[in-house]
């Protein structure tokens, strides 16, 4: 089993005719993902990598019976593209785009509270259920089907941790990059909840970073609601207070919460071992299995 996406997931790619959209559509198809349509205004009737393109997401969903979309639309238009997807009754929208203005996302977030669709991202690498489907830009070859769930705020750090697992022959049920922006759709807690409910997931890796309080909330959720063991990693222990490091999220406010100490402490209190190196995380997972 897996969470959120699998063999049956039928995917629309928004922005499929752009450079990124086209490249990753080919990659997703090659991985075996069921990419059934593209959506680009004015490009309806074209084809990209054999996938039919429609003018609107609505048309694409109607024509191809899609249930998920991946957004590769440039930041200035991505908020609108996510809105379009949310208003089309999809189950899942994965927003890859980096650099969407925060106030656009605040409005998206408001709509999100009014619909049943799940949003993943933005500014995230996507989601993969190894051997079944990947939606996003994750490098499929480093993943392997297995029994460990992974959820992370970061892209390349995810790949690092996954490599450490795969090298040891530990495969993954599903790996999810939730994104590093201040406002995101799916949170750690949402993903952990789904992993807890997934009978095939025997352990979970959670990779956090400094800034915000999502990891603290996740720790609380783990302590209260999870039987599946979780191992953690927190990036940014050496980040000086007040400095922004890449992700908008990765700012330490200097006020007690949001620091690496606070997050590691909260996770430890919830019984979650936190690795000092990515490899140590794999050690903890190996111990669990």
């Amino acid at each position: 089993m897996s969470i959120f996406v699998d063999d049956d997931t039928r995917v629309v790619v928004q922005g499929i005719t752009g450079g990124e959209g086209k490249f990753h559509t080919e990659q997703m198809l090659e991985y075996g993902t069921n990419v059934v349509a593209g959506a680009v205004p004015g490009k309806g009737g074209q084809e990209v990598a054999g996938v039919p393109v429609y003018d609107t997401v609505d048309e694409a969903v109607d024509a191809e019976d899609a249930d998920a979309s991946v957004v590769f639309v440039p930041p200035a238009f991505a908020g609108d593209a996510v809105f379009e997807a949310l208003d089309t009754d999809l189950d899942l929208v994965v927003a890859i785009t980096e650099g969407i203005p925060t106030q656009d996302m605040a409005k998206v977030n408001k709509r999100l509270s009014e619909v049943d669709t799940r949003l993943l991202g933005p500014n995230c690498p996507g989601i993969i259920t190894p051997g079944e489907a990947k939606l996003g830009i994750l490098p499929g070859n480093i993943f392997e089907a297995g029994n460990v769930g992974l959820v992370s705020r970061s892209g390349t750090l995810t790949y690092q941790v996954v490599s450490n697992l795969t090298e040891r022959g530990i495969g993954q049920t599903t790996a999810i990059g939730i994104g590093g922006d201040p406002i995101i759709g799916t949170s750690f807690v949402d993903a952990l909840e789904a992993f807890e409910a997934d009978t095939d997931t025997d352990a979970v890796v959670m990779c956090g970073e400094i800034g915000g309080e999502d990891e603290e909330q996740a720790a609380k959720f783990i302590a209260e609601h999870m039987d599946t063991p979780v191992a953690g990693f927190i990036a940014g222990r050496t980040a000086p207070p007040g400095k922004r490091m890449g992700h908008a999220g990765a700012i330490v406010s200097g006020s007690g919460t949001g620091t690496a100490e606070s997050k590691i402490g909260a996770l430890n209190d919830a019984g979650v071992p936190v690795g000092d190196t990515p490899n140590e995380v794999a050690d903890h997972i190996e111990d669990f299995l």
Partner: protein
Amino acid sequence: MRLHEYQAKQVFADAGIPTPDSRLASTVEEVMDAVDEIGYPAAIKAQVHVGGRGKAGGIEIATSEAEAREAAESILGMDLKGYTVDKVLVEAGVDFENELYVGITMDRGEGEPVAMVSTEGGVDIESVAEETPEKIAREHIDPAFGLHPYQARKVVFEAGIPKDVAMDVASILTTLYDLYESKDASEVEINPVMITGDREVVAADAVMNIDEDALFRQPELAEMEDEAAGDELEAKANEYGFDYVRLSGNVGIIGNGAGLVMTTLDLVDYYGGAPANFLDIGGGAKAERVANALEMVFADENVDSVVFNIFGGITRGDEVAKGINEALAQFDEIPKPVVVRLAGTNAAEGMEILNEDLVQVESTLEDAVQRAVKNAEEVTQ
């Protein structure tokens, strides 16, 4: 992007928020002309992006020509926490009875903006938030509707703002939200709003931070970006489009992806080294970007050793390796030892391509970091 006080005040004043009479000055003579027009007392305030300007000597109140000249001479050109002051704002002193705080920022947890009002203005609001949070009234804002006038009134009354100025403060808050939204701010703040003896409200300071990701649709504000601001290397990184933060150690770090670069920093620390910087070159690794990154890190005199950590992801490792070779070929001599670690797609092929005359190659993150730390130790010994 943070506006200077004088820029933010102009934006606020244009929107109708009362601000003291003021002039921008770059020379002592300009300061003297300004106080001539404005009169005494006048505040002379350094325009640099530094917290706690007042305590650090960046703000002086002058009550006479002599004091004004003295203040101008001491502040203009001074070094304020590493920033050289080349502009001051000369501003009419306000005779105030109370100092209030008003601000709007994004509440990440809720995913909506929040308006904050307090009677404890004029001081460090973070301390108030930590020590007496009940003294800050908060009102969340539905971003679809914006700040309703009633919400502005509600938070102002809840904060206990004196009744005779409450509606004026609510009106400032409404205007601030309009600016927050229309200018794509990530934060707007007035600390303090002064209440004068005549019970007028005046914005005595002005903070406005703009969402970098939205600057493309804020051309007027983008023009205000102060290119000379901050560290020289940080300015260069900005030019190259890198996420870069300069730190105090001697191990230079280059990588792709914020989380992975942070992790590399953490590992340098973990293995006993000290990071000299955070440098995220972002997706892909074209030769030019690699060269720019190396140039920047080499240019930092604190750096004794460099670790280059790329997880290729979709980008193939052989392409990255070619980029690194090309970039390094531009240097006659590699000034500081560079450890390269490639991972992900085609990483093995990439590592074979790398010119080991120029760089040291390691296949795991841990090994690469340990070697770079060791290289740095050898230099300093």
